[in-house]
């Protein structure tokens, strides 16, 4: 059994700045961390490995400093860390990134067939949530996004059952392996590495793969293979908040007022199973 986790190193801050010239993030001076969703991906992989055995390869495309996120993954239980690092990879959008990752997975697959790839739902710096799906498409793996739990995993019969989040609620899907999951934060709470594992991870080697090693087509790599052009970036308009009720002035009154508004809304009332037009008298509150 072989699981691949795709990791990204991202800037850690709420205070991100945008370069007005290039419309891209200013990464300088920001703390770099493992993308939180990817950390969950690693945890999920480790849990599957604990149950089913096998091997985990952590894959990260980034500059040399990004090897720290691979070490982190190894301290949590990944067996190998591979850094895809080459000047030619720089400036990649999700199209070029998924290409580069796919090439690397193909190479990994030659040695030990890959059953599952786990990615975070999205990276907190770009928020596109495209790289995982792009990678699945390129490799022709089953694509399972927004996963909140793995219900069962059966590499022998090449089946996986997961729970995923959809707009209206949850969906449980059974699908064929090999598959690619992108995971939500709640799908697994990351552990803290033990001291021996942490120390061991710092002593291990990180393999660095360049464009030759992944047999990449230069035209599909990095900025060359990235048709995306960020024209403008901006903050979404702040959401206007709904009506406010001062509970401090009188709790009962505030509750009354808010219920009035809810019941006045036909759609909401219907959802709640309350016939419209019925005023919520004392009875509806049970007293």
């Amino acid at each position, binding site marked *: 059994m072989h699981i691949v986790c795709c990791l990204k190193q991202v800037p850690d801050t709420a205070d991100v700045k945008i370069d007005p010239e290039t419309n891209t993030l200013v990464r300088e001076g920001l703390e770099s961390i493992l993308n939180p969703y990817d950390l969950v991906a690693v945890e999920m992989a480790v849990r599957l490995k604990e149950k089913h055995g096998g091997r985990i390869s952590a894959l990260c495309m980034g500059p040399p400093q990004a090897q720290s996120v691979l070490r982190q993954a190894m301290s949590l239980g990944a067996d190998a860390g591979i850094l895809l690092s080459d000047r030619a990879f720089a400036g990649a959008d999700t199209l070029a990134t998924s290409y580069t990752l796919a090439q690397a997975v193909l190479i990994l697959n030659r040695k030990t067939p890959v059953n599952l790839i786990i990615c975070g739902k999205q990276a907190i710096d770009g928020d596109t949530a495209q790289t995982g799906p792009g990678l699945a498409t390129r490799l022709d793996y089953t694509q399972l996004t927004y996963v909140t739990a793995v219900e069962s995993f059966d590499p022998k019969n090449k089946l996986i059952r997961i729970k995923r989040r959809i707009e209206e609620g949850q969906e449980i899907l059974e699908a064929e392996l090999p598959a690619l999951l992108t995971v939500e934060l709640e799908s697994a709470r990351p552990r803290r590495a033990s001291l*021996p594992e942490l*120390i061991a991870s*710092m002593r291990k080697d990180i393999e660095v793969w360049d464009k030759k090693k992944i047999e990449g087509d230069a035209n599909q790599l990095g900025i060359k293979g990235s048709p995306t052009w960020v024209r403008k970036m901006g903050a979404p308009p702040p959401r206007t908040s709904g009506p406010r009720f001062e509970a401090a002035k009188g709790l009962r009154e505030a509750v009354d007022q808010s219920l009035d508004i809810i019941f006045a809304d036909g759609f909401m009332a219907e959802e709640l199973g309350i016939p419209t037009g019925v005023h919520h008298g004392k009875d509806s509150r049970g007293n």
Partner: protein
Amino acid sequence: MSECCDVVIVGAGPAGISAACILADHGVETIVLERGEFPGSKNMSGGVLYGHDLARIIPDFAERNCPIERNIVESRIWFTSKEGGYSLAYRDRIFEEQRRHNVFTVGRARFDRWFAEQAGQKGVLVVCGTVVTDLLKDESGKVRGVRTDREQGELEAKVVLLADGINSLLAAKTGFRPEPDPEHVALAVKEIIGLPEETISERFNVAPEDGVSIEILGSVTRGMNGVGVLYTNKNSLSLVIGGNLKDFARLRLKPYELIEDFKTHPMVAPLIKGGKPREYLAHWLPEGGYDHVPRLYGDGYLIAGDSGMLFNALHREGSNMAMVSGKIAAETIIQAIQKSDFSSESLGVYAQRLKDSFIMKDLKKYRRFPGFLQKHEDIFNTLPDSLSMAARDMLTVDGVDKKTKQSRSWKMIRSKTSRLRLLRILFNAWRSVK
């Protein structure tokens, strides 16, 4: 079975990393444990560092991209009253040229991290996000390793070096060092104020890479035994103000009020004008001096840096004492490894070598200084204002002859501080630092 290595160092501050570098240079397998998410994440200082001592650890630090903010070419001392103050400044071309990097400013978050990276390149493992919670001892009481807050968190070593700073939980817990009392600890608050690089160079009259340090005494500490400082960084200013913990309690001062006040002082305000507050930090400093340095060695362990109360309060030299004590500790450990003897006698060489170094000599020289400040609060409350009034009177041109002014000033000063008291302050001041 627990992990093991030759030396475990607690704390990735200047003391711990200096020791680690020297050990690694001699092929000693060393692990540094740091509770912060990265080295420096929990640390602060005024921000002045000394090239001479750093060069003894990393000789080519400047070429290795040490994150130097500005090279200090001018030192000022201010003696402030509420409305103004005296200023003494010394600038020297030698610090711009031949003796560059004699003193320079750094941001600790960046510097500590850089320093730890140098150690990492030498083969030291710097393990972050890990708190050392206790020391492991054998039946005879010899320290044989540490316990951390991680799972399977024991780590055995031939020697443990405590370089865990003034906040040392371990020292208190293990009884190696009595918990310092408020009188011997200072509390300092720091604000980093962002300003454009050119504005700073202009306001302080320095070349782009050069800077100024200002030590500020007098009424800015509101009668507390303390000091303020203002240092120039590349594109920010560091403002620090602090005082004796006991005085904070006695005068019921709140640290943030103190720094807000400090920022409005007429000599400070124009320098920080238009700046944007960037960071706000608070930290303790050891201030006990020579008489409060605990025993710094024992069976299987050594203590270096702030954890051992090695701090020269008068010259705000802490990081260099940390670096040098770390270096000497490492050299002692290397000898002990050669002899395979980690007993208290063998490690005791450390104390002797510290005594022969500038560290203990300076601390001894100034041993009376903390006590002197504590016993002469006039320096912080009445004197600044009377001396300021005298200067103000002398500089006001109003037709009164100078002799009259002089005697008027003297009378005014003496009404607040007797002649005998003044003499005593001067004499004791001299005695405490002679």
